[in-house]
């Protein structure tokens, strides 16, 4: 008797699952319009959008369903977007990946004249997006810089530049970023070269500079730097004093520890832009464009900026944003401080090999 019941239960359970997961399966077939609804597949970064935004869009556009999935890095996004028969429609690559995808004709042209909210992004794009100033292929979604976060009670210099990272005074209190282009980039700027140097001598000089700096470094890290910095305290001897960090991470870390400040050194720094693009292979381009236009609406851009902590390209969005975040320099830096900032350019395989060789030296030292 008992066994029969358990068997029956198992069968019911299976049927329940089978029935209820059929709607989820609809999302697998990209454009199969069921009941006049079109699915737009959107490949985002993890935790990079306010969770209320997509339901809002679907409410206003009942004929479109956004199926969002996430990728961990530009490289993985590129693999998913470029595989034959990909079903992805909208992607959010960074500027160096956009350049590569433009070169490979992977991106569809946007019809900016029909996009109501293009006007809010226009100014930022023309000033900052040299790779695509008229938003022909990409709509800037968020941007940020790569600077120094430091504890004001330990680091008391008036003017903070990249050379502070090489100062003997802070031996064992400096945190560096464990990423090849970011770390070598810091050294290249410190030496007065370009972030995108293609010169063998310059790159190896940057590598040697980092090798010399290594005894001063407390640790190389990525995400964990946020934790170390948020517990930075002048009262603890040899506590971490400064770290190189992306602005979005800095915003959150500064909320945890009010002794911290963020600075974009005058010599220049890396600036990045993540922008929404439609893939050439998409067959729901009109709906995808409507979605991108919606994301550009100032109130929506503000929601996303507040949620992610990354700056928005739209000045019109700022009025919707919490005063406290606006005053955070990492979130809303003075535009004049960006003058010397540079984008990463897509480097050739041969140049990348030079970077890798220099980086290996640093890691082995």
């Amino acid at each position, binding site marked *: 008797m008992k066994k029969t019941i358990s068997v029956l239960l*198992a069968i019911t*359970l*299976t049927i329940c*699952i*089978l029935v*209820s*997961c059929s709607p*989820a*399966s609809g*999302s*697998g*077939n*990209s454009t199969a319009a069921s009941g006049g609804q079109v699915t737009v*597949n959107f*490949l985002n*970064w*993890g*935790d*990079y959008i306010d*969770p209320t935004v*997509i*339901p809002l869009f679907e409410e206003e556009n009942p004929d479109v369903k956004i*199926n*969002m*999935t*996430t*990728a*961990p*890095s530009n490289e993985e996004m590129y693999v*998913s*977007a470029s*595989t*034959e*028969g*990909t*079903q*992805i429609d909208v992607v959010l690559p960074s500027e160096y990946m956009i350049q590569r995808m433009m070169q490979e004709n992977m991106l569809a042209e946007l019809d900016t004249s029909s996009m109501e909210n293009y006007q809010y992004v226009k100014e930022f794009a023309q000033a900052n997006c040299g790779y695509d100033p008229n938003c022909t292929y990409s709509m800037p979604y968020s941007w940020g810089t790569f600077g120094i976060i430091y504890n004001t009670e330990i680091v008391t210099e008036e003017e903070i530049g990249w050379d502070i990272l090489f100062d003997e005074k802070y031996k064992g209190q400096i945190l560096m970023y464990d990423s090849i282009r970011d770390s070598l980039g810091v050294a290249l700027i410190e030496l007065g070269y370009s972030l995108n140097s293609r010169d063998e001598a310059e790159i190896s000089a940057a590598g040697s500079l980092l090798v010399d700096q290594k005894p001063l470094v407390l640790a190389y890290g990525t*995400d964990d730097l*946020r*934790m*170390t910095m*948020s*517990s930075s305290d002048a009262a603890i001897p040899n506590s971490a004093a400064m770290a190189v960090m992306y602005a*979005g*991470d800095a915003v*959150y*870390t500064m*909320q*945890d*520890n009010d002794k911290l400040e963020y600075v974009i050194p005058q010599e220049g720094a890396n600036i990045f832009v993540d922008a929404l693009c439609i893939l050439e292979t998409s067959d729901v381009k009109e709906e995808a464009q409507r979605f991108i236009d919606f994301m550009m609406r100032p109130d929506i851009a503000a929601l996303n900026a507040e949620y*992610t902590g990354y700056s928005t390209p739209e000045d019109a969005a700022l009025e919707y944003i919490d005063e406290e975040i606006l005053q955070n320099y990492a979130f809303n830096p003075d535009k004049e401080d960006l003058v010397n900032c540079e984008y990463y350019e897509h480097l050739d395989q041969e140049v990348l090999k030079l970077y890798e060789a220099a980086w290996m030296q640093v890691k082995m030292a």
Partner: protein
Amino acid sequence: MARFFKQFYLAIILIFMYLPIGALILFSFNESKSMATWTGFSTHWYEQLFHDPIIAEALWVTISVALLSALIATVIGTFAVIGMDSLRKKTKGVVLNLTYVPMVNADIVMGISLLLLFIFLNIPRGYWTMLLAHITFNIPYVIFSVLPKMRQMDRSTYEAALDMGAKPSEAVRKVVFPQIMPGIVTGFILAFTMSFDDFMISFFTTQGTTQNLSIYIYSMARVGINPMINALSAIMFVVVIVLLIVVNVRSTKKPKRTLQREY
């Protein structure tokens, strides 16, 4: 003294295993987004978790794929074992070794080969291809859980059932199944867990149209893991612990009952 070291050793092992989980649960109640500094007690990550449609969908995909793939793999695997039992010794050896290969094979090889197969067959990647892939890699786990039970079983019980007039299907149902049941249950649970935390194969077989929890958590790496994930892991941990306790309580009671029934 020896006693002290024994207990100390045990304690160390338990601490290593459970301290990280303890930290994870603790910080799921932290007020700020930080995972290093404690700023105050709060349950708002739990609130956010239950209002996040993206996590809800990913969790749903994970659980439904795990249940379905474990169930289907258990059925296929169990019958495979029953079938293999009556093969000749040589053929059986070949089949067994073929079953080993997917288990020792690296996940990434399996993921890519399945991806290539789906592209070749022109099947759009999504929920169903992920399910198919999970069934595929789950079958060997079921087979190797059921197989030892099948070996332990006395074949003559099956033959006796036939002699007493049972149809082969009845004999399998009433004689073979009850004897290999523990193996089947283990196989199911193992398959469920394997599917639940698979990242590599899921990533390649969905290609950005469906995502389960592990894909979503991994993709957060770019902007930092949100403490909502701590909250979710804490809930999953508690559920698993409760299930384990229930199973253990049941199995400590069980021997008595089966004795009574069998005599």
